[in-house]
């Protein structure tokens, strides 16, 4: 993993973000009037650290809590408990002016560029808005910055005077990226930022994000459900399931020797067609869908669907333990069940 030397602070701390035991519970009402209210355990004790200049990927199915994690870090939803240390400061207790200042360095790009832009305001004004709000530069400097940002994301200067409906989906996502870049943040959260785009446009946006990362030494938290994109785009990856991290590892380790049965299931669904896919799907693809995150039962969150679960898994919550260099897995039976053989299988005949 490359760390931009110039971005490393004087004290040598390589981590830009340190998320510590983050919990987000939403109240889900009660079954009967006098019952205790039930809670959606959207994020249930998530901890990870993100190195400067790298991309941290979060992958999981809908309802796994990946977006809620991102929004809690952004302070867009209120965390129930936990710490988020950003640039050496816990930003969870911040309010008012200090929070606004911290957000200058912390930006987000959403999935749907259609609803993320104001339909009644010109593109240039929307990119300029963070500069106005954060009082960065004077008037002419801000205008110049908007033009520069448009060029950086590959849009012509005339784009500033157009309205969002005059752009295609890919161009709108470029506008959202330009707006996120405007206050020169250190961390950008990309919440399914390419999922709504056509494959050809998706490649354009991913290439653009990488270019910007190289040029500006940006740090990304990249959330996606697409394992192919996650593998290629991210340096380190956390696999989330029902509000918890099931496995976390550098990209290479995660896809050569994944340790968690849930990761195996995800991988087997995403491997390109061929003999390996057929074999993995038959052995590891789990049936059904994740259970409800409302008041989950004790024990491992994956136990209900896990083909390797035993009594202990249903009763006792596994911790996220280190199993290798920067490789962590939350599974009671990790040492017994081993690692499947993921090497490519010999191909017989034409594969489709």
């Amino acid at each position, binding site marked *: 993993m490359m760390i931009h030397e110039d971005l490393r602070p004087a004290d040598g701390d390589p981590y830009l973000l340190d998320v510590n035991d983050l919990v987000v519970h939403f109240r889900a009402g009660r079954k009967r009037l006098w019952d205790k209210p039930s809670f959606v355990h959207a994020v249930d004790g998530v901890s990870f650290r993100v190195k400067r200049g790298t991309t941290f990927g979060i992958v999981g*199915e*809908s309802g796994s809590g990946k977006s809620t994690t991102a929004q809690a870090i952004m302070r867009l939803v209120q965390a129930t408990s936990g710490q988020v240390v950003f640039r050496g400061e816990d930003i969870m207790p911040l309010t008012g002016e200090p929070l606004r200042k911290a957000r200058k360095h912390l930006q987000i790009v959403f999935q749907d560029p259609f609803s993320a832009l104001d339909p009644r305001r010109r593109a240039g004004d929307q990119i300029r808005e963070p500069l106005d709000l954060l009082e960065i530069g004077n008037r002419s400097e801000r205008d110049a910055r908007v033009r520069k940002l448009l060029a950086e994301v590959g849009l012509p200067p005339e784009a500033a005077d157009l309205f969002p409906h005059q752009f*295609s*989906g*890919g161009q709108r996502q470029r506008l959202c990226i330009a707006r996120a870049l405007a206050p020169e943040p250190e961390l950008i959260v990309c919440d399914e930022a390419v999922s709504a785009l*056509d*494959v*050809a*446009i*998706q*490649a*354009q946006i*991913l*290439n653009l994000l*990488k270019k910007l990362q190289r040029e500006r030494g940006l740090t990304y938290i990249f959330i996606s*459900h*697409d*394992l*192919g*994109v996650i*593998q*290629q*785009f991210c340096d380190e990856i956390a696999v989330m399931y029902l509000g918890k991290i099931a496995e976390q590892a550098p*990209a*290479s380790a995660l*896809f*050569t020797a994944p340790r968690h049965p849930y990761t195996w*299931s*995800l*991988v*087997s*669904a*995403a*491997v*390109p*067609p061929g003999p*390996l*896919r057929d074999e993995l*799907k038959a052995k590891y*693809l*789990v*049936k*059904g*869908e994740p259970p409800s995150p409302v008041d989950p039962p004790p024990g491992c969150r994956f136990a209900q669907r896990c083909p390797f679960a035993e009594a202990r898994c249903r009763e006792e919550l596994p911790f996220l333990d280190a199993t290798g260099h920067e490789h962590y897995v939350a599974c009671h039976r990790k040492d017994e069940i081993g690692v499947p*053989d*993921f*090497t*490519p299988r010999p191909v017989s005949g*034409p*594969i*489709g």
Partner: protein
Amino acid sequence: MTPVLSVENLSVSMTNRDGDLVPVLENLSFNIDKGRTIALVGESGCGKSMTALAIMRLLPEGFVITGGRIVLDGEDLLAARPKRMRALRGDAMSMVFQEPMTALNPLYTVGDQIAEVLYYHRRLSRKDAAEQAVQFLKAVQIPAAEQRAKAYPHQMSGGMRQRVMIAMALACRPKLLIADEPTTALDVTVQAQIFDLLAQLQDETETAIVLITHDLGAVAELADEIAVLYAGRCIETGPAHEIAARPRHPYTRGLLGCVPHLAVGVAKPEVWTDLGEIPGMVPGLGNRGPDCAFLARCANASELCRSKPQPPLGHVEAGHAVSCWRAEEIAA
């Protein structure tokens, strides 16, 4: 064997604000045999969904079929009267849409919605239709089918709703099923389950499937044939494995190259290499000239391409046809 569905030179146009006809689909042709699957692939705006809606005769207002033939099991659909079309839809031909939440009626239980198809087309009694509906929910592997039949769509997850849609579409054992991006709104593990389910049900019912998708990589498994659409024109067609292994058209190659596929068991390269990208975007309706529609985005375009009209679909191998002036050179 006569094909179940035969689409010949289908052309669809849209009336724009000035009252002019703007081509949406141009001279599209394909056939599907019983029990086979054809995938229509392309980016948004290429005409995939319009093809599906044209076959179902459900084109939105302002869109008209300007030429060609659509023949379902010997019957010319373009000559069919509205009453006949209503009898065919849901019976001989049916459709699964991308978003199961908007396609299901929120006010009726899923059991009632499946039963309605049988009640209407098969003239079953309410009671028999309801019993059959439960059987179909079992066939699409919904656990506790008797109870789930009484559930409303909002009580089910996205994957469950899509299973209900499939059960409803297959209730009358249609000859033709059109699946318009049936898994796009679903999670990856659920996607794999839905594809498996479709393949298994197809084995049992011998339904011909038109699968619409933007992900060329994902369809190779389920499809027998692929037709790649670009700007309303078919630019490459052939057997799925042939197109996946030896794509000829620069657009098809671009589509295959720009998807980052998961590679397991091999170490990831340390440095990022840019994904192959297709610059620009699909030309909008009304901006499509007589020349090759892909010209502006094509890295292989030559003077020859600029001076000629849209190339015809020429056969490069048995069953594999490409619409490109330079197909021969590119393959070499």
